[in-house]
């Protein structure tokens, strides 16, 4: 009978080895961390890369990052939850970001947001149950000259109205 208990450390190492072997995104992340020479001040850069690769920051990614940078998991979790840009929940297939900067707001961005929320039956920051659409808001994307602006799947679209926004959203979610 095997009486020697595995220490948490070796258990974690085994888990990471398994992840590295089974998921090539971890390999890419590892290479990125090496590029920064495992420097602890590169944490935010590493999390950016991780989110780009995985779409969101799952628990394993956070633990792996912590181990690679020799940081406590609490520090990594603290940073990941502090910044708005990082998300710990999976995102929908498509995303729609309504800019709520001052210029967009005075030109009716709130009405666009309300229309999309009503149509998709979700609030800003949520994803539809069928995982088709994530609705987000931005503080200001700096496109004030073409306000109100909405970003659909990364494409900034100028001078939006409730109608144009709904037309776009309806391609993604069943009304």
């Amino acid at each position, binding site marked *: 009978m095997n009486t020697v208990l595995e220490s948490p450390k070796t258990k974690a190492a085994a888990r990471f080895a398994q992840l590295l072997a089974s998921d090539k995104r971890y390999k890419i992340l590892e290479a990125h961390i090496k590029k920064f020479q495992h*420097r*602890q*001040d*590169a*944490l*935010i*850069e590493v*999390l*950016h890369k991780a989110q780009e690769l995985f779409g969101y920051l799952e628990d394993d990614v956070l633990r792996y990052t912590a181990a690679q940078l020799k940081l406590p998991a609490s*520090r990594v979790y*603290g*940073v990941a939850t*502090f*910044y*708005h*840009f*990082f998300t710990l929940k999976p995102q929908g297939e498509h995303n729609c970001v309504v800019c*709520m*900067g*001052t*210029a967009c*707001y*005075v*030109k009716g961005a709130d009405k666009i947001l309300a229309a999309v929320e009503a149509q998709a039956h979700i609030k800003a920051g949520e994803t539809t149950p069928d995982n088709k659409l994530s609705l987000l808001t*931005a*503080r*200001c*994307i*700096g*496109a*004030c*000259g*073409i*306000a109100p*602006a909405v970003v659909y799947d990364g*494409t*900034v*679209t*100028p001078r939006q109205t409730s109608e144009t926004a709904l037309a776009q959203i309806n391609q993604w979610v069943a009304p």
Partner: protein
Amino acid sequence: MTLNDLQETKAKELATRKKIVLRCCMAAGCVSSDAKGVKDQLVKAVAEAGLQDEVEVRGVGCMKLCCEGPLVQADPSNALYIKVTPDNAPAIIAALKGGKAALQQADPNSPFFTKQEPIVLANCGLIDPERIESYIAADGYLALHEAIVEMEPKDVLDAIVKSGLRGRGGAGFPTGLKWGTVAKSPGAKKYVICNADEGDPGAFMDRSVLESDPHAILEGMVIAGYAVGADQGYIYCRAEYPLAISRLQNAIRQAKRVGLLGAGIFESPINFNIDIRIGAGAFVCGEETALMASVEGKRGTPRPRPPFPAERGLFDCPTLINNVETFANVAPILRRGVDWFAGIGTEKSKGTKVFALAGKIQNTGLIEVPMGTPLRTIVEEMGGGAPDGGKIKAVQTGGPSGGCIPAQHLDTPVDYESLTQLGSIMGSGGMIVMDDTTRMVDVARFFMEFCMDESCGKCIPCRAGTVQMHHLLVKLLAREANARDLAQLEELCDMVKNTSLCGLGQTSPNPVLSTLRFFRDEYEELLQPDPHAAPQLAAKP
């Protein structure tokens, strides 16, 4: 790279210039309106007309009139085409040969353009931001050569002090004084940071400068590094600006390749490296101590000052932090002379200021005017007033830390002191125009919600105070508040302003205070009678 190489590059670049240049705006605003398609079709149309030897199609940075994009301007005829679609390309080429075409045009001689005095934006819309040769042809990196080869660090410092340049990030701290403090601080390792975390909603000046003229920022930073004795720089840019980040990365690569960045700049023993740090969406990171925490890979929370970053900053080393626009002013000051710069602007505020004009106004876009220009000139003459015959009610400056300036004060000259007197601030340069359909209490609530969400949670006055103030404003807008609530709101404003740790908290009540000051009637209209007020004694018959 030597001065000779620099001049050779310039001569070569100028010699390859063609007679006619079609400049296509490739900044974020126009790109989102398919400027890329326009440029591609123009290139194709030029080839089809067989004009490759005469006409150059050049992608350039921001051409300022963002609301009319995509923009294309022809040199030397100066015709400015607006709202161009890819289908317009053949017509534009035909117009070059004198053909008449039904194309929408803007007047390049309108006050929007003629009242501008470009220093920071001098290259915007003219040079190709993706080619270092284009910047060198516009006398780029000449100032760096002069600084490193012909001047001592002390002389560079003196020049910046004498120019009277003040920080363009909002507070207006004298730049020379800041540089001097960093230079004097003991320490073998020092850092230079460029604050490109333009978080104020409604501000896009820094984005435009980074996208249109990235080398100007690099040049300013290297000169700063030489003056204060630093060899490492960071540009902290927000993640919401992907185009700016990619142009900066490209610019850094090019500058390194030709020896204008990295080791042995201009074959001198001077080294300077620049790395980009990408923000992750936290407004508070515009505050310098929070920004440094973020560069170190930590949560972006501010810390008490002193010690100031100039003494103990990034990784506990003396650190110089300046805004994008401040760095963009450095090279022109050295190149064109201190006296020239000091001759522009007012007595206490020298030079120019870039504003992002947006909101309920005809011409939205970027403007650069001498300090001291009256607000009225900016909004009415250059901006063209409110659209659809509306009436301008107020101008909001300084973002969530600023205030609203009512229409009756439009003759105020724009400089640091005058705006502070009106309860607003210069801020980084966002200028949102509001017309008579805008409800001021709602504006105050909008900004308070912003500050509430963006409070980092470190100090209680800001963390709890903004929530309570927001609650009171919502109550007011729902017509459920009474005079006692309003009194409590004012009391809270005072408390949060005076006891918060950092600038975000200290200035968060400003939008409420300034709207209360000038639009108190709008607050009072919403008030309900106080049910607990002492009953009025009925007059005896």
